């Protein structure tokens, strides 16, 4: 029998019994409840009437003492009966009866019919005897027969008036209500049985039978190895859990089966791979065995080659076991030490015995230190070969081998026989010492020679000068004396060349730039060489390009020397024809930079191609030059050009002369107004009458520069005050209010830029003229200066005229100028000759000799001695020296000489 059939057989009677039992029980309960409810209801209605009407009416009568007043009692009873007749009765087939104490029916109601009891049909059959008329006031309940039908009654007795108030209701009304409920209950029970059974069966089928069927099918699939499908149960209960467990069980079984098959396959694969690996290993072992044999063979060969290499390189190696003190020597080491293998004790002590006694201690210390620290050592020592007593130099290297804890185990080392190298080095060192000594001797010689030559030359120069200034000479003689003088000076400079070349070699020569008259320098050069050219009847000529600037910034001395050397060589090595000096320049850039170009061309013998480079080497003289020069000229030229970052090239063909082309970077000078100086400045001799007395403040941290500027300005009646930095300048400005400030740009504490900015925002700061003094010629620096609030710029080194010109421009001052300027005294000193009167004759003579000797050091020493006597004079002398204007200084001293001649107290 199927589960479904069993379920029907069991569940149907069970459900029917339960529902029927419950229905019967409910009917009984309901019947009792309805009866009780109806009785309670009519009791309440009855009590409401009695309490609200009868009791209250009687209470009013009592309160007002009217219970004995018949009219009031009757009126109140009448009012009560009217209230009873109007009383609302809830139930159908209900009746209300009121009897007095005598049993007289006072009121009767039935189904809305009202009237005296005797007029109502039912009152005739009312069996009064069935009623309980006890007068205790409590409600009485019971059954009476009415018109052959049983009725339920409830009665209250109102004792003060002896009234019985009876409320009746047909018991059939109760039975009908119960019957309706019973029938309804039976119908509901039947429906409940059908519905309940259906629901239970559907429930049972849904939640038990169908899942069981699915589980049964799943179990069959698992047993047939066709499991793994999802079981269609999603009830979220134990059946669902069972289905999920069965699914996992099926999955696990399937996975186990698959894993087992995979493991079988892997096992088979591994067996195959192992077999292949074993075959490969066998092959490798065979190959390695072959390689090992081949390697051993190569090792033996390498060992033999190593030994051969060591023998060739005189390199041996050794190893000392520090634990056993056993010493191993290579064959080559035995050979280097000249020891037979059997003769050597093979220990460290035996080795030390062979080392030269003078080197033994040093070697032992180095070895001990290496063992202690683990650091390798590298040392050269000597040995006394025991076999032949020969001393050999050994370059020995040693390293220490240690275990993991740092304990030294072995010392390994190499020994190289460096005897031959040591002997060579020794001979080279001796040769170098010899060369150095020779070089020092040459320097000493040159120095001595220079000194010896300078002494007579000073006399030549000095006396030629004196003779030249004599009034008894003709113009021709005067020119000759000038040539003697300038040539002497040139010769003196040549001597200086000799010294310079030495200085150049050691890098003591530096670039010394100044502003100079290029045209004048070129004319001067030509003048110096014209006599030499005329002597050889050569045409010496000078050609210059238009636009060649007159005043430039550069190292005049070196340029002049380059041109003198080149022209001198050209004259020297040209027998007939022309020697030409070309001067030109490149275009200038925005900052005034350009390249000077000089060419010196002759028609001499020319220079062979192979000698074109050699001629620039010092002390080199070619065959045709032998005995005709120092051999320094071109070398100095090249060195000077290197310093000036210039170049020189040579073009020459033998027999046709040669041409040297020189190119030198240079810069035109820039005046206070930024314009190129095209003419020499005029000499200021005084202020025009009626000029204001100006206050001028000098802000300069360099005392010399400050003093120089003060001297320049003190010539006139200016009020001058000087400070050393920007802070002091700002303070002094607020107190003193100058008309013009000479402001150095670079100063400690506060520079000129910041000081100018501060002054400009101070009261009166906008009106004061501020002139920057700077050594920079860069335009960008000038922009920075002008943006800081300066009115203009004066560049260092400045000339007196630059300062005066600036005052003219900024303050509107007007100066008077020397009208004879240019006719004589070009470059003449501005110093007052009367200052020299204070200088003692001996000191004056020392100064004069130093000037004649062009010895600047001695000139400055003399200036120091003059300082206590006349600081102005000393400063002026220093200025002339720093301005390289020795010529002016000579002329200045000549004035004292002239004065002396005219009656000086010292001369």
């Amino acid at each position, binding site marked *: 029998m199927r589960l479904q059939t069993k379920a029907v057989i069991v569940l149907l009677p069970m459900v029917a019994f339960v529902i029927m039992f419950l229905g019967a029980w409910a009917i009984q309960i309901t019947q009792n409840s309805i009866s009780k409810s109806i009785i309670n209801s009519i009791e309440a209605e009855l009590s409401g009437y009695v309490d609200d009407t009868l009791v209250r009416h009687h209470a*009013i009568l009592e309160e*007002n003492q009217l219970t004995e007043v018949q*009219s009031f009692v009757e*009126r109140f009873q009448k*009012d009560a009966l009217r209230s009873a007749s109007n009383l609302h009765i809830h139930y159908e087939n209900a009746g209300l009866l009121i009897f007095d104490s005598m049993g007289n029916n006072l009121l009767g109601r039935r189904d809305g019919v009202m009237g005296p009891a005797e007029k109502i049909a039912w009152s005739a059959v009312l069996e009064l005897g069935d009623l309980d008329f006890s007068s205790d006031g409590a409600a009485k309940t019971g059954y009476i027969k009415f018109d052959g039908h049983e009725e339920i009654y409830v009665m209250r007795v109102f004792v003060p008036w002896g009234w019985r108030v009876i409320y009746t209701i047909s018991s059939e009304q109760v039975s009908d209500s119960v019957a309706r409920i019973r029938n309804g209950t039976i119908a509901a029970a039947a429906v409940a049985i059908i519905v309940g059974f259906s629901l239970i069966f559907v429930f049972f089928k849904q939640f038990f039978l169908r899942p069981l069927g699915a589980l049964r099918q799943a179990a069959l699939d698992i047993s047939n190895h066709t499991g793994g499908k999802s079981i269609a149960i999603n009830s979220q209960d134990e059946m669902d859990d069972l289905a999920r467990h069965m699914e996992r069980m099926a999955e696990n079984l399937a996975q186990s089966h698959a894993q087992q098959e995979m493991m079988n396959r892997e096992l088979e694969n591994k067996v195959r791979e192992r077999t292949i690996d074993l075959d490969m290993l066998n092959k490798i072992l065979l190959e390695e065995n072959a390689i090992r044999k081949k390697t051993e063979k190569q090792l033996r060969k390498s060992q033999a080659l190593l030994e051969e290499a060591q023998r060739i390189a005189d390199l041996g190696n050794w190893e000392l076991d520090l634990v056993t003190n056993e010493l191993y020597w290579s064959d080559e080491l035995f050979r280097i030490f000249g020891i037979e293998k059997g003769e050597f004790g093979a220990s460290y002590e035996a080795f030390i015995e062979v080392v030269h006694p003078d080197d033994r201690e040093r070697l032992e210390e180095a070895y001990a230190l290496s063992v202690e620290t683990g650091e390798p050592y590298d040392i050269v020592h000597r040995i006394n070969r025991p076999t032949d007593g020969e001393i050999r130099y050994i370059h020995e290297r040693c390293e220490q081998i240690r275990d993991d804890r740092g304990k030294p185990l072995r010392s390994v080392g190499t020994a190289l026989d460096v005897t031959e190298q040591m002997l060579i080095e020794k001979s080279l060192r001796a040769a170098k010492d010899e060369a150095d000594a020779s070089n020092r001797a040459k320097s000493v010689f040159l120095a001595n020679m220079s000194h010896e030559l300078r002494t007579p030359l000073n006399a030549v120069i000095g006396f030629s000068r004196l003779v030249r200034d004599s009034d008894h000479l003709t113009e021709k003689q005067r020119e000759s004396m000038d040539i003697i003088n300038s040539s002497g000076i040139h010769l003196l400079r040549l001597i200086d060349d000799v010294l310079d070349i030495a200085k150049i070699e050691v890098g003591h020569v530096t670039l010394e730039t100044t502003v100079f008259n290029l045209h004048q320098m070129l004319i001067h050069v030509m003048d110096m060489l014209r006599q030499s050219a005329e002597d050889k009847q050569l045409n010496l000529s000078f050609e210059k390009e238009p636009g060649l600037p007159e005043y430039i910034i550069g190292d005049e001395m070196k340029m002049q020397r380059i041109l003198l050397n080149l022209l001198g060589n050209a004259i020297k090595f040209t027998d007939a024809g022309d020697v030409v000096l070309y001067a030109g320049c490149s275009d200038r850039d925005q900052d005034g930079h350009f390249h000077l170009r000089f060419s010196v061309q002759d028609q001499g013998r020319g220079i062979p191609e192979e000698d074109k480079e050699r001629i620039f080497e010092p002390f080199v003289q070619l065959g045709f030059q032998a005995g005709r020069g120092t051999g320094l000229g071109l070398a100095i030229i090249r060195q000077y050009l290197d310093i000036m970052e210039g170049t020189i090239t040579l073009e020459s063909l033998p027999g046709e002369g040669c041409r040297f082309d020189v190119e030198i970077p240079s810069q035109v000078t820039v005046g206070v107004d930024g314009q190129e100086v095209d003419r020499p400045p005029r000499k200021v001799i005084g202020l025009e009458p009626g000029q204001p007395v100006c206050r001028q403040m000098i802000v300069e941290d360099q005392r010399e520069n400050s003093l120089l500027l003060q001297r320049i300005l003190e010539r006139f009646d200016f009020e001058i005050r000087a400070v050393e930095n920007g802070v002091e300048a700002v303070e002094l400005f607020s107190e003193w209010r100058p008309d013009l400030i000479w402001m150095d740009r670079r100063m400690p504490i506060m520079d000129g830029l910041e000081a100018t900015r501060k002054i400009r925002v101070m009261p009166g700061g906008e009106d004061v003229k501020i002139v920057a003094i700077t050594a920079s010629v860069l335009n960008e620096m000038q922009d920075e200066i002008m943006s800081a609030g300066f009115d203009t710029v004066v560049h260092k080194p400045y000339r007196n005229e630059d300062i005066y010109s600036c005052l003219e421009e900024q303050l509107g001052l007007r100066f008077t100028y020397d009208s004879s300027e240019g006719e004589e005294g070009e470059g003449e000193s501005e110093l007052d000759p009367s200052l020299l009167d204070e200088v003692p004759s001996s000191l004056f003579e020392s100064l004069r000799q130093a000037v004649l000797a062009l010895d600047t050091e001695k000139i400055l020493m003399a200036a120091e001695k003059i300082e206590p006597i006349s600081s102005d004079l000393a400063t002026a002398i220093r200025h002339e020296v720093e301005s390289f204007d020795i010529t002016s200084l000579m002329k200045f001293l000549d004035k004292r000489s002239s004065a002396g001649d005219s009656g000086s107290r010292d001369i």
Partner: protein
Amino acid sequence: MLVVEGLQRRIDVLLPLRKSLEVFWMHVIPGKGMAPTLLKSLFLLVVLSVVPSVALADEAKRVILLETMQVPVVRENSRWFIRQMEELGYIQGENLVLHVIDMEGDKGKGEQLLGAALAAGKPDLVLTSATLASQTAWQMLAGTETPMVFFTVSDPVGAGIIEKAGVAGGKNITGIINSISPINRVNLALKLLERPANGKPVRIGIVHSSYPSSVSDVGRLMAIGAHHDEIEFVVRRIDYRRVPEGLPEMLSEVKQVVSELSPLVDFWWEPLGPLGEVESYTRTLLENSDTPILMGNRMRSVELGALLLLSPSSEASGREAALLADAVLKGKPPGEIAPNPAKRFDIGINLSTALRLGITIPPDIFKLAGKNIYR
């Protein structure tokens, strides 16, 4: 006048502090005699001068109560009115300044006193008790923005105070009508009486003054009587004279009229108005004739022998007037509140009179009378 009123207001403020002041006096200024009394007087003067009047007025509601005269119904209604105001949270001197004016039945005096009070400052509300006060006040306040609430007025329409009872008038006035409709009183009376055997109507005599409310009430009773053949009103009017000084003269005249009218009527009916309000009027009726009083004008009449009383409840009138005043003080316009009678009324029965006359009182009248049953 203003100074007196200001002093009054200061005292009103100090009244809540009275207990504290008494404690202060007992402990700080003990003893009796001249010196403590002077000290207490000086202290009171200082305190009165220190208490600033502005502290009272700004937050307190200023209310004027204009009373026609000090007759019992007016006093009783005002008493219940004040009690209800207190129960609503109004405290004299704190949030309420109630200025009670007794116009002593004199319209001119009422106008003078009320005018002075209005001149002292615009009040938040004017209350009037009884018809004459209400008429006087309304004549002064009609068309203004000052709200007005009347009570103890039996016929405000007839008195010209409002246009219609039970309907919001839209003006600055509303109130509590202090009367039971005459038809209700007539029906109650008829419920007790039985038509005489001769089939003639029961004759009821009314002696009333020319006081406006009295005239109005009697006029309506006569109109009702004209439509009922069971009763007949026999009316005599005397001139009204201001009470209390004019009362003896009026009573003397009443006595004369009662003597004349007593043989012609079966019962007396006390009229509304000042004359009917006084006990001496009832006594005049009872002492000068054997005719019983069917309908009294107040409970005291029933106590003295009148068979019935059906009148508005003084408690209800006073309390409902206070509720109206509260609503108006809180911002509700009087024009939006319909004037209605008080919702409760008083019934009184003199059972001795009933028994003497053989009249059976039905149970429902007993229930309505409650405790107002006298023997």
